[in-house]
């Protein structure tokens, strides 16, 4: 007699923590968040922009913990693809321009970039959408529609 079929397992969520920050405390918090979001079985990718601050011993412990459990701690901040993108950034001008996918390489899924006041967007692929959050009359309904259509990355 065969065992009853088990229900299909839900897809594993991928969560990216992108660290692009010059404040050591914020970097340490981003690493703490990266460990935090791993607690319910998600696959975590951490991508650190060169030039970001050193998060200190706590960040090193978090990095070691995540690596020990098989999470990626060396992602590319310009090409990260995930269901959830937490972008820890301080508004420093992004060093990169638009990043098109190389010919022959499948594009990552589109992302909606939400750009706060005084900030600039960095890596934008051809299919991405960019919305400004910097004006006083933000159309949040429009932003909500965009969020519904694609993962959001806040700059």
């Amino acid at each position, binding site marked *: 007699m065969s065992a009853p079929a088990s229900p299909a397992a839900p897809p594993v969520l991928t969560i990216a923590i992108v660290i692009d920050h010059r404040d050591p405390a*914020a970097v340490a*918090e981003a690493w703490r968040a990266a460990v*935090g979001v791993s607690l*319910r079985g998600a696959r975590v990718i951490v991508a650190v922009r060169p030039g970001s601050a050193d998060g200190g011993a706590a960040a090193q412990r978090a990095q070691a913990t995540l690596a020990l459990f098989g999470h990626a701690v060396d992602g590319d901040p310009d090409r990260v693809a995930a269901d959830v993108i*937490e972008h820890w950034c301080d508004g420093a001008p992004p060093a990169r321009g638009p990043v098109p996918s190389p010919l022959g390489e499948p594009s990552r899924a589109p992302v909606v970039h939400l750009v*706060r006041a005084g900030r600039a967007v960095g890596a934008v692929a051809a299919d991405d959408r960019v919305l400004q959050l910097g004006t006083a009359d933000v159309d*949040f309904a429009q932003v909500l529609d965009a969020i519904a259509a694609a993962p959001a990355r806040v700059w």
Partner: protein
Amino acid sequence: MRRLGLVLATAEDLPLVCGLARAALARRVAVRVFAMHHGVRALAGAPAAVAALVDDGHEVIGCATSADAAGIELAALGVVVGSQDDHAALCAWADRVVAFA
């Protein structure tokens, strides 16, 4: 989209969180907010905005570690005292997550 998760880790982005939450309410999209780092300071600095979120039926959770470090009493604000596990739970619960960090 039925469930929207909002992560707040900055001092200045609470108005954006509130704007999205209001738009979501109008669409009957459930909202859960998780605040950490400077985000808990933002909640403490805007109790009326926090009360509006809670009154609208949104769940607002603050990281106890961040609150303790800042000397902030989350429960007095009507905010659920939580942990990074709530951060992970929000990501698993939501159809979409927007992080202001």
